[in-house]
């Protein structure tokens, strides 16, 4: 197996909770609470979970939009040397941020309305001194063409474009520096169904063409299944299960994964009322004060008192099968249901 492109070790991100007139810190939200994760070169790793589970924070820590509280983010650069993104000083970071790029979710707020496509997509080239003048224009035009936009649009402003086209601009901006790792944070959530498929296919084609590695953050399990090689499931700041996509979808080993999979509405009315749905309670525990033991036990239908709720007895991600890890104390006793393929 090739060496991983990114290794996250025991990563913590905490946000202070401030109250009162003087902004006193009364506690910490553990947005990311001890995550270990590896990303292999050339793969697409999916990161799924409900809103507030910390998946976006994890992605932003890797891009160093957020500085993590503790832990390591070891990135293996093109030369084969490991750098810790978590602690890299600013001058080093600038160089690393050429190789690790981000595609944001919101195609409307992520493009500066006062700049033309040429200025937006050319900005990274300009800032890193890669190209200027007509060379810059040529490269931007080429990149736009590659993501399916006509070079005629170079001098247009983002407001003239639809959500799907704006997302193509976002992708062009991320890829123009020829990065190695792309963090795509809900890149298709804001798009219409028919446009979503176009963007997903485009992302896949670009991956093959440029040999990219993706960290694909999404809450949509059907989209994740269709694009990801492996999937990591996150709950309350921790990873609860990591496995190959097929494995995870057909044989989940964590009750949370099972519940998530069962909740996805399937586009087939004949699957209705098949009794497969697991109902999770609506309320997520307070991330500033997570429950003791397994943090999922408050909503888990398999939780056993005295086993799952023991303080300090939180389960760790452990190997359950080859390439399949889950953080559940009872994983070996349970027979969890996965997805049955849609009858075609």
């Amino acid at each position: 197996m090739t060496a991983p492109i990114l290794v996250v070790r025991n990563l913590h991100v905490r946000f202070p909770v401030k109250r009162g007139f003087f902004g006193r810190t009364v506690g910490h939200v553990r947005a990311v609470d001890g995550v270990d994760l590896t990303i292999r070169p050339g793969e697409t790793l999916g990161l799924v979970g409900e809103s507030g589970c910390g998946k976006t924070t994890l992605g932003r820590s890797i891009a160093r939009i957020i500085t993590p509280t503790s832990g390591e983010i070891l990135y293996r650069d093109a030369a084969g040397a490991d750098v810790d993104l978590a602690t890299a000083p600013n001058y080093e970071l600038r160089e690393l941020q050429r190789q690790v790029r981000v595609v944001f979710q919101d195609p409307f707020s992520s493009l500066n309305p006062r700049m033309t496509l040429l200025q937006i997509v050319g900005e990274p080239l300009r800032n890193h001194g890669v190209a200027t003048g007509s060379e810059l224009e040529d490269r931007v035009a080429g990149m736009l063409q590659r993501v399916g936009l006509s070079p005629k649009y170079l001098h247009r402003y983002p407001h003239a474009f639809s959500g799907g086209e704006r997302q193509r601009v976002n992708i062009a901006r991320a890829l123009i520096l020829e990065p190695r790792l792309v963090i795509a944070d809900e890149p298709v959530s804001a798009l219409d169904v028919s446009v979503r498929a176009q963007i997903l296919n485009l992302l896949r084609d670009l991956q093959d063409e440029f040999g990219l590695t993706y960290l694909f953050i999404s809450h949509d399990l059907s989209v994740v299944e269709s694009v990801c090689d492996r999937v990591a499931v996150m709950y309350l700041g921790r990873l609860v299960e990591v496995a190959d996509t097929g494995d995870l979808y057909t044989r989940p080993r964590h009750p949370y994964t099972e519940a998530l999979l069962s909740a996805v509405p399937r586009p087939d009315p004949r699957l209705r009322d098949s009794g497969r749905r697991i109902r999770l309670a609506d309320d997520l525990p307070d991330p500033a004060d997570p429950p003791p033991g397994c943090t999922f036990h408050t909503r888990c239908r398999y939780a056993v008192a005295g086993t799952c709720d023991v303080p300090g007895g939180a389960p760790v991600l452990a190997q359950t099968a080859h390439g399949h890890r889950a953080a559940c104390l009872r994983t070996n006793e349970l027979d969890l249901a996965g997805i049955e393929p849609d009858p075609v």
Partner: protein
Amino acid sequence: MTDLTSPAPLHEPGPPPEPPPAATEAAEERPKGTASQRSLVWWRFKQHRLAMAGLIVTGFIYLVAVFAGFLAPFSSSTFNADYTYAPPQRLHIVDRSGGDWDWGLFVHGYRSVVDDETLELTFEIDESQKIDVGLFVKGDEYEIFGLIPWDRHLIGPTNPDDPMYLLGGTRTGHDLLSRMIHGTTVSMSIGLVGVAMAFVLGVTLGGVSGYVGGKTDLAIQRLVEFFMSVPSIPLWLGLAAALPPDWGSMQRYFAITTILAVIAWTDLARVVRGRFLSLRNEEFVTSARLDGSSRRRVIFRHMMPSFSSHLIASVTLSIPGMILAETSLSFLGLGLQAPVVSWGVLLQDAQNIRAMATAPWLLLPGLCVIVAVLALNFVGDGLRDAADPYKR
């Protein structure tokens, strides 16, 4: 301001490629594809009729302010003590007193009348006297833009010593029209200079507050709150009264402007801070940082343009406040003092009821204040509405 009001060149004509699907399902404005935000703002501004009218009036007033020396028949210090409270003269174009049509501008002279009861000396138009009036006549010397000396005036009596009081005379025998035109320069420039000072203070402190955040933000915000909590009129009065009486008119002018700016910067600082705070978390700003933009570039290239139109709107809206403040101070005799004339200084003459009964034209500077303030307010409102062309 000029670059905002001129539409930016369109880079490439033609229909937009694919119009955006409406974010909501409701219909949404659909601007042209290559129009920059500046032209979008301008288009929307043009739709605002009142604002356009305000813009034209404001432009006219500033033109008057700039070319005051040329437009005014006399200098602000020229007076003829023989004609106090001279009533306004009508400007005639044709003289038919001789029976035939005698074309040419002229006004009638005055004759003094002694009131039988009060024994007061008043003036009446004497239709038998004719004072020739010409365009581009030689008169008092002045300097265009304070540089080029010249002595031509748009309008004035052919003989500079003849009395001409188109809008009446003041207590001291000054021509009110001339003084109002000269006052325009002072009053309107105090608005601009004061706002410029407030702008620098407000943008710097607000920007630092919003961008740096943390303890700095806390400190600056407390400072802003302190200034906002001080009642402004007593503060102006106190500061203005504390000015040394022996200061020259120029010193006094700048001192008053500074006093006004010290109060006015707080609003701007709040606007700027708020914009910075909301923009700091916008994804395009995060993207700009990830694109390797330096901190300066993030602020000046990516953040500032996004709220420059809001800023211009706020600035425009704070000019009238300045003008009013100066007028009030001068009216109370605590602001500018002769020989400098401003509308407020001129209004001092209208303080007692007797003067107003005999010379109601002394209220005209007040009309100037009202028109200027309204026009600027309309422009500011229009700008504020147009500032965000992507929102409805």
